[in-house]
């Protein structure tokens, strides 16, 4: 558990955070009279003016249902919606827009794969390999599918530093696996898995590879072609876009051979009383009226992220982690979980204060204007592995500052004072 970063060696952030913060109206708010210190970005991000305006603009200027209207407003809204898809495809370097499906959130994307691919491809006796780092949304669908069809599920462990046990993973893959479902970046610990290597190994072992990139796409450059996955799933609301937007990317060959998921509306090409034919990709998987305002908001968010540069955002987050970690570790009674260095991680820092329950921590933080998450982070298997019921988690994004790291540290001292620990 070496601490490789000390305060003086912090690399400067490449971002002009002061300018960025002006784009986020909510950051001007106060909480109980104190400036808002928003450090719950792994739960959801805040939204820039540009995204909020893009959404209002649709509703005020050319709102109409998409794809089927033979009039100008419908055509404009359809164009904006499909343009958002194109932006998203470029953002993750998808080979084709046809492979990018709009969903409500990562959870829906993962369940879509479980229902529409899993039920036809995972059979009795098949093995699904996954990890103890998974968010419930990338674990429970597989657990339930396995139970339903009689498949087996193998859960790969982490080491004490919060890194995936590659030896265990390899052993499990060697035993044979139909599917590897693995998170790119842990929402509980901030660990970034070596997904490219893992995916190659899994595919060589004959497994289909699904990567949960919900915590990756907002914070680090993600290139699905380079990654070598078969499916990736993510949520818009964690990347400056509104809740209700998100994406599933899948290889065209696989998507084409899958049955649909939800039935009705745009996903249909022709219906007779006896038989239905499906629409082409990607619409085959988009049933009913899409959340087109949210999707257009996601397009605007991608523009914003592209402008700032995701690699720079990652460097900025690491500069905050580098600033924060040594300060946290100086405080008696504070335990930090997961990686203690800057190697392969994002701006998520999970910790506990001895003698204070995370919920009490978060309540006291709140009165200091500091918003963090306290709980199991939809990571109960991971909490069990760590031997805790819950942690307090601070998670950063492009608009956070070192001053806010100081506020977090002060809030910890405040909590310790209240509890006399």
């Amino acid at each position, binding site marked *: 558990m070496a601490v490789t970063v000390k305060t003086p060696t912090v690399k400067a952030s490449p971002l002009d955070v002061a300018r960025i913060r002006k784009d986020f109206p909510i950051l001007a708010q106060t909480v109980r009279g104190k400036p808002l210190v928003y450090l719950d970005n792994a739960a959801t991000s805040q939204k820039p003016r540009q995204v909020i305006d893009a959404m209002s603009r649709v509703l005020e200027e050319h709102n109409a249902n998409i794809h089927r209207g033979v009039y100008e407003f419908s*055509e404009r809204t359809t164009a904006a919606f499909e343009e958002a898809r*194109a932006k998203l495809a470029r953002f993750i370097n998808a080979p084709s827009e046809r492979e990018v499906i709009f969903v409500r959130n990562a959870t829906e994307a993962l369940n879509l794969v479980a229902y529409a691919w899993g039920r036809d491809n995972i059979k009795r006796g098949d093995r699904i390999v996954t990890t103890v780092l998974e968010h419930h949304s990338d674990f429970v669908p597989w657990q339930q599918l396995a139970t339903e069809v009689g498949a087996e599920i193998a859960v790969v462990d982490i080491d004490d530093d919060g890194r995936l046990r590659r030896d265990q993973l390899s052993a499990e893959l060697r035993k044979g696996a139909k599917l590897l479902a693995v998170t790119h970046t842990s929402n509980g610990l901030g660990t970034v898995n070596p997904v490219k290597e893992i995916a190659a190994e899994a595919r060589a072992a004959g497994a289909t590879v699904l990567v949960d990139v919900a915590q990756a796409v907002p914070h680090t450059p993600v290139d699905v072609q380079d990654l070598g996955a078969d499916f990736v799933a993510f949520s818009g609301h964690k990347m400056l876009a509104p809740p209700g937007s998100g994406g599933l990317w899948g290889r065209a060959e696989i998507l084409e051979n899958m049955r649909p998921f939800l039935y009705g509306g745009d996903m249909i090409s*022709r219906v007779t009383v006896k038989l239905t034919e499906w629409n082409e990709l990607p619409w085959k998987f988009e049933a009913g009226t899409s959340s087109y305002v949210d999707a257009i908001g996601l397009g605007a968010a991608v523009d914003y992220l592209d402008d700032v540069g995701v690699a720079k955002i990652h460097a900025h987050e690491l500069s905050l982690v580098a600033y924060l970690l040594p300060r946290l570790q100086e405080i008696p009674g504070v335990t930090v979980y997961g990686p203690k260095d800057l190697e392969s991680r994002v701006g998520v820092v999970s910790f506990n204060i001895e003698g204070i329950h995370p919920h009490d921590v978060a309540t006291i933080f709140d009165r200091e204007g500091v918003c963090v998450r306290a709980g199991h982070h939809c990571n109960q298997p991971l909490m069990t592995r760590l031997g805790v019921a819950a942690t307090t988690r601070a998670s950063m994004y492009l608009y956070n500052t070192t001053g806010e790291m100081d506020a977090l540290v002060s809030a910890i001292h405040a909590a310790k004072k209240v509890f006399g620990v």
Partner: protein
Amino acid sequence: MDDMYRDYILDHYKNPRNFGELEGATHTYHDSNPLCGDEMTMQLKIGDGHVDDVHFTGKGCAISQASASILTEEIKGKTLDEVKAIDRDHVLANLGIPISPARIKCALLGLKALKGAAWGLTAWPGEEVKAK
């Protein structure tokens, strides 16, 4: 009044050229646009690599019918390779009217059926969505 529904478009719609069953057709392809219910069958009689005759049948909107009718006039006598080389821009230019995105599929249904016939397809292989 009209940019789009010009006289020649309406004329092709009301009096489609080369309309009806083609006896002795060597190539036939049927396609449809379920969105608007348009149906289209293109039939070619190919001899010596040339289009000796072409007919189409179907029903649909003025744009799809006129576009198909104009296309059949154009390709008579052309070589099969020339027919295969016709692209969407050519068809849209030939139509000579502004086509809004929602009507593109109407304007191109004839071409799609023609290509299916020219290539000797029985079902359409790919899809029309442009790759990135």
